[in-house]
């Protein structure tokens, strides 16, 4: 945040703070060879899937050492080496791509599951409908994971969905749809793990709706905070009672994990982030003459 405000992070920044359990729980349930696609908000997701923090941070700053060489930026992480295929800043645009990843796995006869993240707002795009239908028809190994944080920008579910229980969209396509507590990392993990099992044995896709909440404003450039589409109390209540980090901390402590160990892990994470920040700040900007790089793989005649 501080880097954004300090002008080190250009463009937009849609944080996924508050949604960590849904993200991490889901990512843990798939393997290294499995694929994932994300959205404009998928910042924690690549971390969950195992991407290198340094290169992610450098990408946020548009640096040469960025995971996408500074071409993609905040909304467009990808790390093919760990199966993060792509993220789409076009709402709903990544759903067909994820479906295609799974389609490819089926055609090639490869045991690979694709985990497709998207938001509650994306559910209303035609791509959701068209893709889920095809995935169900062909029993593709794809998990559609909807992070339902109750709002699309300023628009609530009640203002945008003819019927607000998103999981109920699934039966229309002939696939199971279920809702889980998205602030409970174990619950998300369990649900996704089961769906992954179904997918691996050829039973096709599952729609999973993780009920979660976005703690920050929509993005760190829009001024939607002032617009009053959700109350300060609502936000505070979620931060207080539904923070997935403290909830899971409590569970771990209850399960006998000791405070010291947790502290140590937290410190380690803080160190990693600090180090990533150093790396990113130290990384040079891409040289202007490299602009055309990466446009094409095959060279052109003439």
């Amino acid at each position, binding site marked *: 945040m501080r880097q954004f405000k300090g002008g080190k992070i*250009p*463009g*937009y920044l849609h944080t996924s703070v508050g949604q960590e359990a849904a993200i991490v729980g889901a990512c843990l349930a798939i393997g290294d060879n499995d694929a994932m696609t994300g959205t404009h908000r998928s910042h924690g997701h690549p971390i969950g899937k195992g991407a290198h923090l340094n290169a992610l941070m450098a990408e946020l700053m*548009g*640096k040469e050492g*960025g995971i*996408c060489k*500074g*071409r*993609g*930026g*905040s*909304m*467009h992480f990808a790390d093919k080496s760990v199966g993060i295929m792509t993220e*789409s*800043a*076009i*709402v*709903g*645009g990544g759903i067909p791509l994820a479906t295609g990843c799974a389609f490819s796995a089926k055609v090639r006869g490869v045991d690979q599951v694709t985990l497709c993240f998207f938001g509650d*707002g*994306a559910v*209303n*795009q*035609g791509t959701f409908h068209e893709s889920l239908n095809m995935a169900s028809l062909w029993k593709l190994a794809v998990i559609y994971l909807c992070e339902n944080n109750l709002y*699309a*920008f*300023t*628009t609530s579910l009640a*203002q*945008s*969905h003819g019927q607000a229980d998103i999981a109920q969209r699934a039966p229309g396509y002939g696939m199971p749809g279920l809702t889980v507590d998205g602030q409970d990392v174990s619950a998300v993990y369990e649900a996704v793990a089961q769906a992954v099992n179904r997918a691996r044995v050829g039973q096709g896709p599952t729609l999973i709706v993780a009920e979660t909440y976005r703690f920050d404003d929509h993005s760190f450039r*829009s001024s*939607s905070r002032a*617009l*009053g*589409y959700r109350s300060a109390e609502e936000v505070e209540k979620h931060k207080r009672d539904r923070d997935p980090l403290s909830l899971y901390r409590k569970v771990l402590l209850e399960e006998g994990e000791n405070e010291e160990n947790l502290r140590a892990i937290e410190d380690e994470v803080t160190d990693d982030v600090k180090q990533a920040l150093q790396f990113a700040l130290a990384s040079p*900007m*891409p*040289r*202007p003459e*490299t*602009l*055309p790089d990466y*446009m094409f793989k095959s060279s052109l005649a003439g």
Partner: protein
Amino acid sequence: MQTDVQKFAATPGTHIEMTYFDALMQAQVEEMARDERVVLVGEDVAVYGGVKLLEQFGRNRIWNTPISEGSFTGMGIGAAINGLRPIVDLTVGSFLYLASDQIINQASKLRFMTGGQIDIPVVVRCCMYPVGSNAAQHADRPYPFFMNVPGLKIVSPTGAADIKGLMKSAIRDDDPVLIFEDNHLWTVKGDVPTDPDHLIPIGKADVKREGKDITLIAVAGAIRATMEAVDALDEEGISVEVIDPRTLKPLDHEAFKSSVAKTGRLLIVDNAHRVCNVGSEIAAVMAEEAFYLLKRPIVRLSAPDIHVPFSPALERDFYPTKERIMQASRQLL
């Protein structure tokens, strides 16, 4: 504090200074007040977008839509066929591709295909965000994309008075009109006529600066770097005539020709990607119809045939800069 309604109320003088963005909003407010068939449709329009039109017009005129660009645009077109005059706000230029089937296969064609039985008075509005690290999925300038399509009118105002007058003309027009704003012009101020019937005709270019050595046609957002360059060239003793097409479809070729007849030199600056952009079309028409007036080759400046990068370092000189415009002008002499 002034409410938005007060802020945009008509004022007694003949002109008032306001920003491009405020002038756009004023056009909408005035037209919505004038004609109750005008409704606004788009994502988050009831909450976001500068002026809270809701206050004045209520929920029946301002419709927050689900994220369904293809169909809410189609819905606007259907509503236009059936008696409304919707303004469909697609917010970001790059999202127009999601609605292109409805805009092209339906809106642009149905009047013709029904033998004139139906009219389609719909305005499709979007803003382009060329700079500021929006990255390629949010930075497109898709006007050239739609220029090949018959049946559409396309406007690209660059000043406060122009956007007010062209937006009003677009809303009053009985055919589909696409209006492309440039985000980096939003804060530019200008004198805007207060006359509620201040209309700028669709299809008329405007001479933004008179000159005698070179004709420079600046398309949409290119006007900013152009004016800076032209001021500097003036100091060098090079007199450039700047023409803003304002309407991209249909283009005002007569205005271009009159100027070329005077200067014999033509430079076109269009921030869109280079291939098949507005500059291509203008150059092609001039190479056919004004060939014998030309003393020099027609020069075009534009964004390269590369996607808009995220990194500020790569974005910096992506669009034609003041320096490149000056250099190209000097070489034309």
